[in-house]
């Protein structure tokens, strides 16, 4: 029997933070596994190193903070951050890229703000953007699709993990978006650049890119599963994808030589990963449905703008970080209406019909 007064409710829904994190990790698994199949052992090793280092950094920070690390490590948020960082890296990147990425994500992206739930920016995207700016060569060396058992063996792969992709051009190439950027600088048009582009291969993920960029289809399915599980809401993905589609269709219809079609936009880069797993990050997205729609639309516009007119081929990371910065503002201005009050907080005036 209780001694100190306990307030209700005395029952709960039973959804825990670790339960949510586990679901998100599960939803990412199909795409991750496909990537390991597509790019072989180095990818698996890189992923494991990144996740392990993310957990180590988390434990270290918690130790510095003087709190027990185990309950926090068990909630799975560090694993998820590590996995998302790994998914934003080129599949054959050297191990230290993963470690530095985890360090940026966990230490600078999360713990300096006060830990879980306090960060302003999405840690994984922060890590990706910081790495992209700091190590442009390593972050843009994309290995060709080299399926498991056809590429380097289990032991040989450790060499790739240690030093990255061997410097032979035959092994690497550009991502679709990268090729477009390069092509534009050579005054080529979209159809000229995308001669051997296959929309179907892009959809299933048979293309160069980071782990989170290749298989749009599996990421989309994972996202739908999260929606069904009620872990994410439809507002952000729907408004993000819709905005991007509308913008791409308008501009592609206006000038097909210089603007990509919606299909290419949606299937290249990290769009699906961002729409369902990054932009929907609870901590760094707005709280209200309307705010989430605004946030998603903002992300969609920024992605299109950066891809079409920016200096970088892929704009998702920057778009997310910029919109993250707007989240507090959105939350400040867009609030739910309180029962019996107008949106401005004044009580409903009953003298007016």
């Amino acid at each position: 029997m209780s001694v100190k007064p306990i307030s209700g409710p005395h029952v709960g829904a039973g959804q825990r933070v670790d339960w949510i994190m586990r679901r998100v990790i599960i939803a990412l698994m199909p795409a991750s596994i496909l990537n390991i199949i597509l790019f072989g052992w180095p990818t698996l090793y890189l992923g494991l190193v990144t996740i392990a280092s993310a957990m180590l950094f988390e434990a270290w920070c918690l130790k510095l903070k003087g709190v027990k690390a185990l309950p926090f490590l068990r909630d799975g948020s560090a694993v998820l951050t590590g996995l998302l960082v790994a998914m934003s890296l080129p599949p054959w990147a050297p191990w230290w890229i993963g470690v530095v990425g985890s360090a940026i994500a966990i230490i600078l992206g999360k713990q300096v703000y006060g830990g879980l739930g306090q960060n302003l920016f999405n840690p994984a995207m922060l890590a990706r953007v910081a790495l992209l700016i700091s190590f442009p060569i390593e972050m843009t060396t994309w290995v060709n699709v080299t399926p498991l058992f056809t590429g380097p063996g289990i032991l040989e792969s450790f060499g790739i993990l240690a030093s990255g992709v061997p410097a032979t051009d035959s092994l690497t190439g550009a991502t679709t978006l990268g090729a477009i950027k390069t092509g534009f600088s050579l005054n080529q048009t979209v159809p000229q650049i995308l001669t051997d582009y296959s929309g179907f291969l892009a959809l299933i993920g048979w293309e160069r890119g980071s782990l989170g960029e290749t298989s749009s289809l599996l990421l989309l399915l994972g996202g739908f599963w999260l929606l069904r599980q009620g872990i994410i809401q439809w507002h952000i993905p729907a408004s993000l994808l819709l905005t991007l589609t509308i913008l791409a269709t308008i501009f592609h219809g206006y000038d097909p030589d210089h603007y990509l079609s919606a299909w290419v936009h949606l299937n290249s880069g990290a769009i699906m990963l961002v729409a369902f797993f990054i932009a929907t990050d609870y901590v760094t997205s707005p709280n209200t449905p309307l705010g989430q729609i605004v946030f998603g639309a903002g992300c969609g516009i920024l992605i299109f703008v950066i891809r079409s007119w920016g200096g970088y081929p892929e704009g998702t990371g920057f778009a997310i970080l910029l919109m993250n910065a707007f989240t507090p503002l959105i939350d400040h201005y867009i609030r739910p209406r309180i029962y019996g009050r107008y949106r401005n907080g004044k009580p409903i005036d009953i003298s007016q019909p």
Partner: protein
Amino acid sequence: MLAIFENPRLRGGIHAEEHKAETSDQPIALNLPLPNKLYIPVQQHVGKPAEPVVKVGDKVLKGQLLAYSQGTISAPIHAPSSGTVIDVMECPAPHPSALPIRTIIIETDGLDQWRSTIIPDDPFALNAEEICLRVGAAGVVGMGGAVFPSAVKLNLGRTNKIHTLVINAGECEPYLTCDDLLMQERATHIVSGIRLMLRGMHAPKAMVGIEDNKPQAFQSMQDACRDFPEIEVKQVPTRYPMGWDRQMLRYLTGWEIPADGRATDIGVVIHNVATAYAVYRAVCLGQPLISRVVTIAGGAVAKPQNVEVLIGTMLSEVLTFCEVDKTKIARLIMGGPMMGDALPLTDVPVVKACSGILALSAADIEEPEVQPCIRCSSCITACPVGLLPLEMASRIRVNKLDEAVQLGLKDCINCGSCSYVCPSNIPLVHYFKYASGELFKRQQMEHKSEQTKRLINDRNDRMERIRLENEAEARRVMEARAERARKDAEQIAQGVQP
């Protein structure tokens, strides 16, 4: 499109595991043995406590007045059975703090003998004032848990122009089925009560809202209302907190009560369904509110059921009747599991507010670790009022109560939906209850400091006055002395120079 966002009829809320089937198909048990002693607190309602009119040693009959209501918002207390008043003393209250409350203790004589009552020939011929008067004299209060004196509400309804009486039969709390059973078994009486209420307020029509997880109750209420077209029985979705009166009203009619107003402001009065039954008993049978139907359920209860319990019966006796394994009780709750209060002991009486006694086992409740907020906004989605629980709680945690108030703390109804869904197990509602209490305390402190200032000023003024008076007195004495000295000197001078 925007209108959908602006005025949803049903907003937020949760669907908790119902646990209602355990008790909803069993009849109300009427055979609870008469307890040897009844403990009747003098305050079982909102407002001023009732003032005892009986002395220790008095013999009382069942239904006899024990304590009369004081002031406009109060309710009288009656003897639940016949016997002798053996004490009027402070006893632990059925409240989370178990602090003492003034309690009248009756030793029952086992005869259960009614006082003589005058029953009106045709209750429906009574005029409105008479109905309100009888309801008030019977000590009827809101039975849904708010325990607001019903007569006050009826009077308020009569003086304002009321077009709709809403009968709240949502009973949205998990486990509880007392209203369900009452409607299944005593629907005709409830309908009589509703008609009396309508008459008491000169209101033209009534709407009864019943959650759709109570099909039998809905059926029997519809059957009972067949001859009374002014009463409309409607099904509402099962979604906690449907039984929040304003939510029920919004769903049934689409109307919202202004945040700074009452239901009567928009021509509506909302009563609980069990209150309607109590009104029937008060007016048609002349019986005051001395018993109520209580749901006894939970993992530690071997025979979960609804029991008609006399007010003042110790919880422990009811628990024994339902074969509760006391060693298995992890938490004892009065009311429902969402808004009910955990009681620290079983030796407290059943009161008018007690809709259920839940003896929950360790498997029923959860006391998980609190984790940091991950801003998942589930609480915002679940809030039926449209508040931002996570923001409010984070302000309250650092004692910035003013900011929490600006975010709408005072509109919170403590329904617990936010705490229920929170994946980090943050005791959100507990924060809000604490903050409301703290605000009240601060208000009182400010009041006291004003009073203190007044007292100090008064005292200083008085001191100043006394000082001035003393000075004046001293001056007067000095002057008188000087005068005397002068006169003496004159006399001496005269004496010297005759």
